[in-house]
Every structure is written in C-alpha cells, then in structure tokens.
C-alpha cells in the first residue's frame, strides 16, 4: 500500500492527484494504476517521467510500505 501523488499534466490527465493504492512494490503499483486507467498507465512509463519514493528519485524497483509516498513527476518546467 502506498500514498500516490501525481503532478503536472499527469494529475490533469488522471483527474486526481492524491490517492492510496494497494501495492507491495513499484511494479505492482504501476500495474494497479494501469488496470484502473490504461492511458494513465502508459503516461506513467513515458520518457521523462521520474518516480520519487519518500521524496527521493528512484530508478528501478522499490518495496512499498503502508506509509510510503510515491510521486510520479512529469518533465519539470523550472520556475
């Protein structure tokens, strides 16, 4: 289980930005999100989308606890 945050155009596309999702690791989380919303599932693995687990960028797999925060970050615009 994890708290999932979406930012920028990902949040607009999904129609939500903060949700709790049942998953034991990042790949099962992506799978659960894609099952609920296939086009979001595709957008989450598009080039340039980064994943932060508890506010640190992660490349690859990560285990998730009920208190883990997972953020999907589309390409950053700068300020």
């Amino acid at each position, binding site marked *: 289980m994890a708290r999932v*945050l979406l*930012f*920028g*155009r990902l949040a*607009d596309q999904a129609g939500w930005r903060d949700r709790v999702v049942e998953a034991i690791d990042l790949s099962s989380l992506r799978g659960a999100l894609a099952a609920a919303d296939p086009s979001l599932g595709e957008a989450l693995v598009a080039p340039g989308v980064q994943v*932060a687990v508890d*506010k640190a960028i992660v490349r690859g797999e990560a285990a998730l606890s009920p208190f883990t925060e997972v*953020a999907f*970050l*589309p*390409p*950053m*615009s*700068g*300020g």
Partner: protein
Amino acid sequence: MTVTLTDQPFEPGALVTAFCVGREETGAVATFVGLARAENGQAAALELEAYPGFTDAAIGEIAEVAAKRFRLHDVHVVHRVGRIAPGEAIVFVATAAGHRREAFEACDFLMDYLKSRAPFWKKEHGPDGARWIEPTDRDRTDAERWD
C-alpha cells in the same frame, strides 16, 4: 541559507532590506527578482505547482552548490507557487559574498538552475485555455553554461 516556497505575494524590497542586515564582512549583495509577464494578454495567469519537501530540498541542494562554488556568505531564495498574476514577483534570489563578482555570478547561476531544472510544473492560463509549459531551448543552453 534559506529557501522558501510561498503561495502568497511577496514584497522584494523588504526581502533585500532584511537580507542585508548585520553583515559586516559581506562586501556585495546581488539580487534578482523575476516577474510574471502578461505576454500581450496571452497569459492571464501562471500556475506553478511544486512538491513540498522535494522542490525546496532540491533548491536547497543547488544553493549549497552555489555557496561552495562562489564562496558565498549567504543565499536566500523565495519562490511563488500557486496562481500568479502578471506583474507579480515569481522569484527572488539574493546572494551575499565578499566581493561583487562572486555575488553576481552566483545569482546568475541560481537563476539558470531555477528556470531550467528546478522541480516545478508550470501552467499558463490564456484566452484559449491552459497549457503546460516546458523549459525553452534558451533556458537549457543558459543552464549548460555552468556545467
């Protein structure tokens, strides 16, 4: 060193005054203030989204890099988030150093980072609706000057 994200308008002059207080060894303070442009009516408002705790930490890390590289005495960054009207200040950067060259260059370095690589997501609201903005080629090449 201070990094602040705020959803409230701020007054740059007051920030400069406060930043200069009590500095007996600082010979130079350089500041930059970025304002939201109206783009001839194309931009009714800007909306900036940040990831609290992540965005400020990332800016803090680059401020540490600037402090070391340019031997700064202090840095202050204030960045707006949320909806910003044309003419309002979006960003304030102040750098304090022994001499002017380091203060100017650090300010320039920090702004190039903030405009191109800082973790914000920017939406422009205009007459034809809203669109997400990405860094321009100019923003990217400006930032590459320091690599």
